[in-house]
């Protein structure tokens, strides 16, 4: 029921909500502003920063000095690659758990999630050594594998909660209609689950894009994605605020936009369907 709210009250809430939102958003706003300033202007008083001249120089410098787009491209390959690979493994598994549940299905789901509870640092050493011996250190393929595995439980869980909402009778109807298992998954299940699969894809690209334990520890220069590239700014070299801002802006912009588009499904995905 829509309830009449006095405009006075609505105005107060509006002011409070906007103030808090601006405060929370301000750091992001600020790096975007700084990225369009010269290094000299970027460290000035905030008011002087805002009134100083705008320039694209920092973006050009970032690319020239450190081949920014290679790292950007690495990030794209790692996040999209690991998510697509994860989906290929997870769709059949989620089909099995959602539509042919057995006595142990719950346990398997719980156990899959429990692999997420394993602190990554607990297996850092062996993974590092295995990667070193297999020549996978600082390689994209190695990181795609790791990111696939760490996000696989989340992908399976998300797909599972989406698949469970598809009535089993429809798949049975397909079976009665003569569809093989392959037909059933390709022609019936997948098209019906497109929204769920899309939001799983989106959320996992976001998670993989921002992953900053394995990407920092297993890469050096060649395969380093943006997380590692940005981390290289942690040892300052003269004036670097504008360049850092430009690099950061480019690193977060694509994910921010994807995130905004997927915020409705995000809650569901992040809570494994427990909160809708």
């Amino acid at each position, binding site marked *: 029921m829509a309830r009449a709210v006095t405009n006075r009250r609505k105005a107060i809430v509006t002011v409070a909500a906007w103030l808090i939102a601006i405060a929370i958003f301000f750091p992001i706003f600020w790096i975007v502003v700084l990225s369009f300033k010269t290094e000299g202007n970027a460290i000035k008083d905030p008011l002087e920063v805002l009134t100083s001249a705008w320039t694209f120089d920092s973006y050009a410098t970032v690319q020239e000095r450190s081949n920014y787009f290679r790292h950007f491209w690495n990030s794209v390959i790692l996040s999209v690659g690991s998510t697509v690979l994860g989906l290929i493994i997870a769709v059949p598994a989620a089909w099995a758990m959602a539509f042919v549940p057995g006595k142990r299905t719950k346990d398997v789901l719980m156990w899959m999630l429990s692999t997420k509870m394993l602190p990554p640092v607990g297996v850092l050493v062996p993974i590092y050594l295995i990667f070193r011996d297999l020549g996978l250190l600082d390689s994209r393929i190695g990181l795609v594998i790791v990111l696939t595995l760490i996000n696989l439980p989340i992908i399976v869980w998300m797909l599972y909660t989406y698949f469970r909402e598809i*009535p089993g009778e429809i798949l*049975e109807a397909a*079976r009665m*209609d*003569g569809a093989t298992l392959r*037909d059933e998954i390709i*022609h019936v299940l997948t098209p*019906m689950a497109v929204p769920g699969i899309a939001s799983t894809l989106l959320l996992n690209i976001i998670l993989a894009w921002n992953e900053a334990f394995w990407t920092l520890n297993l890469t050096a220069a060649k395969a380093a994605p943006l997380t590692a590239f940005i981390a290289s700014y942690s040892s300052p070299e003269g004036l670097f605020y504008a360049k850092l801002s430009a690099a950061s802006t480019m690193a977060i912009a694509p994910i921010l936009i994807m995130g905004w588009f997927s915020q409705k499904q995000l809650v569901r995905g992040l809570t494994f369907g427990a909160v809708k």
Partner: protein
Amino acid sequence: MGRIQLEKVTKSFGEVNVIPPLDLEINDGEFVVFVGPSGCGKSTLLRLIAGLEDVTSGKIEIDGTNATELAPAQRGLAMVFQSYALYPHMSVRKNIAFPMKMAKVPQDEQKRRIDAAAKALNLTDYLDRRPGQLSGGQRQRVAIGRAIVREPQAFLFDEPLSNLDAALRVGMRLEIMELHERLATTMIYVTHDQVEAMTMADKIVVLRAGHIEQVGSPLELYHNPRNEFVAGFIGSPKMNLLKGDTARQHGAATVGVRPEHIAVSTTEGLWQGKVNVAEHLGSDTFLHVNDHGLGSEPLTVRVDGELPVKHGDTIFMTPDTSKMHRFDDEGLRL
């Protein structure tokens, strides 16, 4: 064509035995209704025939060949589901075409059958819509259309009308019966509604807890129920079941009298009672009578709709003893 035989079929889920050994024969072209209260195993039985579940033991023969191990699609059966189970991402046309696409039926033959089915089911104008844009009755017709084009040995219906409103249900009931007349294909129909069973079936199979209680034509079941359960389940309103002295007078543990087999008078009769509720349906009136001294359950009687009775009236009732059903202490017909 379409002859289905079950031999000693059982089904257990883990420890729970849902269907005890069960034999059943369904003849070609018959309209068979499985009826029973919820949880009686009627849907499970249908799913066993469809092949959506494995039998635990026993044999299913379709048309003389052993189908026990066959996958659902290979059994030549078509099923209409309770929820219709239409593919929401496909147009009506594609929904109906799907089984033919899977069976690799040539395009022009597909088109011919779709047009024929659409014409028969009044769906011609809706072929390019999605199921989501259709009403409940139309969706039901699409589901039936999808079943028809396969030209199956038999149709299986799993409570197909339970999601429709009352008025639509009567209409669809007639349509399905007409379809059966026209195609003369075997149909197996599951419902918990005994009215549907009585009006549609050639043969009714009454189930309780996986057991077949009785198999027979609607009128056989109505006139000669084999036991108390069938007697109470078939017929509306329910048969009055009386125990104690009344039953003993007739040499039985329980006697049953249908509401329509009790004559009512305001002046004299065998039994006397007080009207608690009078349900006026127009043509008929059903009286629920208390204080009749025959037991704690109220008696239900049917009287002519013209009879002016109301709550609190005292009436006299006389059962038609020739139409009385007698049961022994195990509930079996005497």
